[in-house]
């Protein structure tokens, strides 16, 4: 496994997936080298247990090998398709890990509330917290404006759910807010994102 990092163009990945769909093992190896570090990063955010994350990674690529024949480049971007498989696998692994005692990384909460021991165990200190990740994602022009329009609470909820795979009730516990409040923040945040992205796409298309 030599050259790394997902610098592959979407068109290259689509070609690779098509070849994987036909059972091309060399293409499968190339696809793995181009995408596994990214997907492993996604999985580790949601399930920080390295052993479990490796199991999930294995499931992801077995799944990719078996279902690549059904990948339709006209319907989905390759990286979107792969990331969705990875996030689903990671979220499902949380359900299986019954004995999980999982306190959440606490970059979002006030410092004094943070549980440093748990934090250190899970997230290396130089790693970005979920909200920072969201802000980093928002550096992309197409989403910056839309993420920026969300309230601080909405941003926290979206970041915790997306990056760490927290459920509604886990987000509520984490933010010490009633479940109903968190559900409605998230619901409104998703609707606001959808509307804003649709407007942005319409404007881009109209230009």
């Amino acid at each position, binding site marked *: 496994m030599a050259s790394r990092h*997902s610098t592959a163009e979407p068109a290259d990945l689509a070609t690779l997936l*098509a070849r994987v769909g*036909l*059972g*091309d*093992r060399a*293409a*499968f190896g190339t696809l*793995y080298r181009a995408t*596994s*570090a*990214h997907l*492993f*990063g*996604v999985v580790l*955010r949601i399930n920080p247990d390295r052993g479990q994350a*490796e199991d999930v990674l*294995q499931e992801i*690529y*077995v799944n990719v090998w078996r*279902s690549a*024949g*059904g*990948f*339709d480049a*006209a*319907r*989905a*971007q390759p*990286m*979107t*398709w792969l*990331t*969705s498989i990875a*996030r689903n696998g990671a*979220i499902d692994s949380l*359900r299986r890990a019954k004995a999980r005692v999982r306190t959440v990384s606490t970059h979002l909460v006030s410092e004094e509330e943070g549980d440093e021991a748990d934090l250190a165990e899970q997230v290396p200190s130089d790693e*970005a917290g979920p909200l*920072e*990740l*969201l802000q*980093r*994602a928002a*550096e*992309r022009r*197409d*989403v910056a404006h839309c993420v920026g329009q969300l309230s601080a609470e909405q941003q926290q909820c*979206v970041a915790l*759910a*997306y*990056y760490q*795979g*927290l*459920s*509604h009730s886990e987000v509520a516990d984490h933010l010490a807010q009633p479940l109903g409040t968190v559900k409605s923040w*998230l*619901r409104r945040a*998703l609707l606001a994102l*959808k509307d804003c*992205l649709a407007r942005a796409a319409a404007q881009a298309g109209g230009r």
Partner: protein
Amino acid sequence: MDYGRRVLADRLAAEYVLGTLRGPARRRFEALLAAHPVLRDAVAQWQQRLQPLAAGIEPVEPPPRAWQRIESSLFPSAPEPASEPWWRRLGVWRVFSGLATAAVVALLVVGQQTQPPQAPIVVVLGANPEVAQQVQARFVASLSADGRALVLRPIDAPPLTAQQALELWAVPPTGAPRSLGLVKADAATTLLHTQLLKDTAAFAVSVEPAGGSPTGAPTGPIVSLGKLQI
């Protein structure tokens, strides 16, 4: 779907993709996805919307053993010289293919010697389980016993764009599939061929660009397949 249900479908799709839809509700939603194109479209749109959020996540190099485990779980035997193509992965007829070939040969020999009237051979092509979540395509192929004529009738044809066509393949027990030509999605197609049964273990239908596969091998998803049982 009325407005209220459409709104609910979109909300559930959003929560599914974000990940907050959990437990039995997540399982129920996944079961519904298989049967509801509207839900699948909503999920695909949400995946596309939220994908930019993944951009900021730092890549983490998995250890080399991760790849070794993937390889050994998918390809347990000694590494094959060439890549293992899809038609061998299908596996369902691997056990039968030798038998089927033997039976076909026997049939041909008997047919040539005694020339009794032979009943046509019917092959049901079911939806390919690997893509059944996206496409449910089913066909019935009726072959003359001498293997010279085939009529393919669609039962459930997949939706096609103007740039797509369906191509029928004869899949041998080993080696690459042979194209039998393009077939119609909305009506029966009759194919005349000298040797439809020779060295054929199964038939498969793939979605190809209009005009057929540019490479001579299936390039699009295999949507339907059926084993030849004689």
